């Protein structure tokens, strides 16, 4: 009997330990995601932000959640706080659902749901509109369990009072108040009290809308705080699964929890929790590395950006742009860019969200090309919908600094300095490159553009700039655009400004190719290295040798990639071309 008990305990502790290790591992591999979570989550000190959230039910939890999310600035600290909340949930849950012995391991399952909810977001992290998402659900669930623990510690005749308390906490706890009423009423044998609880449950949201939230759409009051992933362009039910599961589990635990004190339950719960999380968690190398690159680029740590880029044969277009900015800052753009590759892959995005460079890093990219007005506009466009998070505030502060708007710099810096871990934050000085590029083009009036195509189209038009750096960028983007007319125009300007300097490798490659395939009538004669020219000849010879009738271009490209993938010629013929679709004029004044 004793042996059986020890074995049961061993299974219990073993399962718990396995699950704890799993949680730690999942948190560890998502540390970059958590950093980005804080960087893209809005928290503004002061009464305006507080009141805005408080004007909706569940607002207080969102406010608390928003503040706590900022702790992810140091992902280990944020994760530590999250683990603490989950630990409290575990203990409060065992009391609230009266789980004894092996049955207490059932609380692993709600925690697995909450863990899943913060690692399944994928690219929603850039566009989700829910303030305080990362902590508010865990914090509210903890409060609900504490409330339930207290309620179940009182005599049953007091339950009616607890139903009324839950009703009155709806503005704070939102849908967790409803879950509380449901769980409490189901945890006991039905009586008149429980029936009344159900009636309260049915009318809670509508009553509160009439009492306090008549300025809100009814949909925003019913099930307040339940995460709904819905924007003007995107919607997903996938991300709500952990919360529906959490609610279902809480109800089941109320009904049957106490009967599940079996020795195998801990193991079953640990395995179920792990499978549940792994099956819904979003994992993609580009997703994480893109976040790392954005973080380092924001710190002007271009060496690290290049390091990540060099480890990455198949980047996203955001990564490609950041790599080229890093090379620009490094001074080796026209010598290394095509060696490192300018092909990019689409985002691995199972939800088919409309997430692009625009959402992930566009203000950062535009800022580094000296296009500060665009960077400001894009920061606003995104922040208005996704929130004035540290990322956008930092970008706005840097742009204001580049524009010389000192008062604005002061405003954004003050706001950032009031965030928990940003006390001493100051915008980095404007780099010489940004200063030079900012002055290198003339003003024009544009409409709403596609971010990546606009960059390529616009920069490749800097034909007549007097800036050496800008002429290099113009030449590079004309090459990336595979546009002979712009190539010749930008090359002339580049040569004018870079007299007596070495002719960079990729520029030589492009020059040889365009001289061969699309020469101008009035040719510009430049010296090229014999080895480069010989290689070009070999390139075409190899193509002729490998190409077979009806062979697909992709097959040929794969066969050539290893030997020729580091050349401009390969990019020009086989590379994925940047979107250069024309701009869209904005129709509405605002």
């Amino acid at each position, binding site marked *: 009997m004793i042996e059986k008990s020890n074995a049961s305990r061993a299974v219990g502790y073993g399962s718990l330990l396995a699950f704890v290790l799993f949680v730690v591992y999942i948190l560890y591999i998502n540390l970059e995601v958590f950093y980005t979570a804080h960087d893209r989550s809005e928290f*503004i*000190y*002061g*009464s*305006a*932000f507080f009141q*805005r959230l408080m004007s909706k039910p569940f607002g207080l939890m969102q406010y608390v959640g928003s503040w706590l999310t900022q702790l992810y600035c140091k992902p280990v600290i944020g994760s530590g706080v999250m683990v603490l909340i989950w630990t409290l949930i575990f203990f409060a849950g065992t009391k609230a659902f009266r789980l004894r012995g092996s049955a207490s391991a059932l609380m692993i399952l709600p925690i697995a749901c909450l863990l899943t909810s913060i690692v399944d977001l994928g690219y929603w992290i850039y566009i989700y*509109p829910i303030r305080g998402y990362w902590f508010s659900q865990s914090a509210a669930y903890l409060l609900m369990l504490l409330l339930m623990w207290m309620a179940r510690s009182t005599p049953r005749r007091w339950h009616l009072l607890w139903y009324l308390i839950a009703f009155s906490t709806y503005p704070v706890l939102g849908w967790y108040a409803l879950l509380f009423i449901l769980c409490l009423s189901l945890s006991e044998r039905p009586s008149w009290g429980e029936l009344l609880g159900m009636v309260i449950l049915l009318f809670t949201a509508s009553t509160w809308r009439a009492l306090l939230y*008549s*300025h*809100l*759409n009814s949909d*925003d009051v019913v099930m307040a705080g339940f995460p709904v992933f*819905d*924007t*003007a*362009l995107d919607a997903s039910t996938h991300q709500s699964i952990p919360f529906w599961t959490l609610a279902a589990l809480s109800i089941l635990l109320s009904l049957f929890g106490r009967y599940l004190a079996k020795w195998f339950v801990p193991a079953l719960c640990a395995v179920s929790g792990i499978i549940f999380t792994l099956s819904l968690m979003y994992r993609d190398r580009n997703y994480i590395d893109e976040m790392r690159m954005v973080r380092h680029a924001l710190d002007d740590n271009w060496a690290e950006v290049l390091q990540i880029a060099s480890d990455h044969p198949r980047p996203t277009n955001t990564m490609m742009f950041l790599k080229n900015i890093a090379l620009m800052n490094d001074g080796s753009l026209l010598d290394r860019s095509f060696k490192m590759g300018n092909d990019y892959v689409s985002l691995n995005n199972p939800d088919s969200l409309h997430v692009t460079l625009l959402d992930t890093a566009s203000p950062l990219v535009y800022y580094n090309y000296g*296009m500060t*007005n*665009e960077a*400001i*506009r894009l920061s*606003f*466009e*995104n*922040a*208005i*919908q996704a929130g*004035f998070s540290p990322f956008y505030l930092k970008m706005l502060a840097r742009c204001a600094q580049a*524009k010389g*708007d000192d*008062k*604005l710099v*002061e*405003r954004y810096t*003050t*706001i950032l300095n*009031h965030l928990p871990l940003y006390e001493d934050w100051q915008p980095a000085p404007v780099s010489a490159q940004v200063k030079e590029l*900012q002055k290198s*083009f*003339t*003003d*024009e*009036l*544009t*409409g*709403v553009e596609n971010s990546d195509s606009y960059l390529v189209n*616009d920069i490749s038009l800097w034909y007549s700039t007097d800036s050496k750096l800008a002429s290099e960028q113009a030449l590079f983007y004309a090459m990336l655009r595979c546009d002979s007319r712009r190539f010749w125009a930008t090359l002339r300007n580049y040569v004018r400004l870079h007299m007596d300097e070495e002719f960079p490798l990729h520029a030589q490659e492009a020059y040889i190719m365009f001289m061969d395939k699309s020469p101008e009538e009035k040719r510009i004669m430049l010296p090229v290295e014999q080895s480069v020219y010989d290689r070009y000849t070999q390139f075409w010879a190899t193509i002729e040798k490998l190409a077979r009738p009806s062979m697909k271009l992709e097959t040929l490209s794969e066969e050539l990639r290893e030997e020729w993938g580091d050349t401009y010629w390969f990019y020009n013929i086989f590379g994925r071309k940047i979107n250069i679709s024309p701009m869209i*004029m*904005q*129709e*509405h*004044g*605002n």
Partner: protein
Amino acid sequence: MKKHLHILTLLLAVALLFMSSCTNHPDVPSSSKAVKSLPDIFPDYCDVTVPCNIAPLNFMLPSDRYAACVARISTPDGQQRTYGQGVKVQIPESDWHTILHASTGKSIKVEVWGKTAKSESEQNGEWLSFSPFEIHVAEEPIDEYISYRLIEPSYVAWDYMEIAQRHLTTFEETQIFNNEITCVDKTKGQCINCHSYQNYKTDNMLFHVRLSNGGTVLVNDGKVSKVNMKRDYTISSGVYPAWHPTAKVIALSTNKTRQGFHTADPNKIEVYDMASDMILYDIATDSVIVVSADTTLLEVYPTWSPDGRYLYYCKSVPLPEELAGKDIRSTYQKVQYNLYRRSFDEPTLSFGEEELVYDAASQDKSATLPRISPDGHYLLFAQGRYGCFHIRHLDADILCMALDDEAAPDIDISKLNSEGFPDSYPSWSSNGHWIMCASRRDDSNYCRVYFSYFKDGKAEKAFMMPQEDPEHHTFFLKSYNRPEFMVEPVRISVDEFSKVFTD
């Protein structure tokens, strides 16, 4: 033991409650270093003239340079009060109104001490005493309410926006309408703006709702309805409205508005009309009369004279022949507006001939947003070098001109304007002694509401609309858009307004 614990808890709670309700009346520093300059307070209330019914002018010293602030306020009756907590000076409303009452028609003296923040060299900051300043309290009150749209200084995207009303005697701000309650199509979104009142009263008012569930929400003698002013002969539904001061007619412009973005210019955004005309909406018959529809010129921003006998508006001057028909993106800097008026015959709803009121174009300028003073003697308008959307033009200022011989001979409202920042959307209080404008002078980006006292053709130094927490303007990332005076609050609730969308 348990009983004692309860008593202790209760005492603690009472003490906390007491402390939270207390105002901090700090002592004036016993020793301080005199500084011969005015304190760098935010908002800048040094030597301003304020109405006798304004909310407390709370202010603060910059928190990066100072650790504490004490202000001593002296009234003409010899009373002195000190305030200050941290770097902020927040005066309770009851105290403030006592101060105003004692100082009406006179001045309040404000002395400010600031304790410098600790530096590496100095472990403890030192107290500085700044030159005192005065706040002049005018006898003329300001209209008790204003309304405005709150929106981020946006480009294309917008999210949540609201039209709010503010009680100027207190800090109370309530919502008139928001763009979420009736939005039924998230992909379209919903935009709200252009609220307008008849003669400063709210029984007759309107605001527009665009895109999802769009229309004009009209309040006619307190009854709410939604109307559609678009006709097949107008280029759009009504946009910029102006209620006739007495009749149930509304003049509106109809606009095909576009915006473009500067790639380098500090103005950043350009809003321009591809076409605009003017209409008159007759509420009784739900009919739309075309006032002007010149296809080559742009008419916009109608406003009525206080007696309702004239309709003032802006109209563009013809473009030079060589620019005619060219893309607006290359000609927008040549589009300039003058101010005109036409007489109005209310019984027949007909208009007289057009008269030029102000020729801005001949000075290579563009005048917009005319507003006539309630006594009919003065005309306020915004002026920049070109275009019609001056709130985005750094060179935009507000100008005032005499409309008749009864106006003061020397008009000077330079103290209302800022140097190098957009000042626009001027309006008069109902007694004609307060000018309100929207200005980006604080940081070039966020519009804030400013007031200036006007008497005998002179405007006094403008001051920012006071907030309970002076830091509010730093952390509030929205602009105040289209501020309008009202003599009474809008009493219809958001929910009641929303019902006209479901009826």
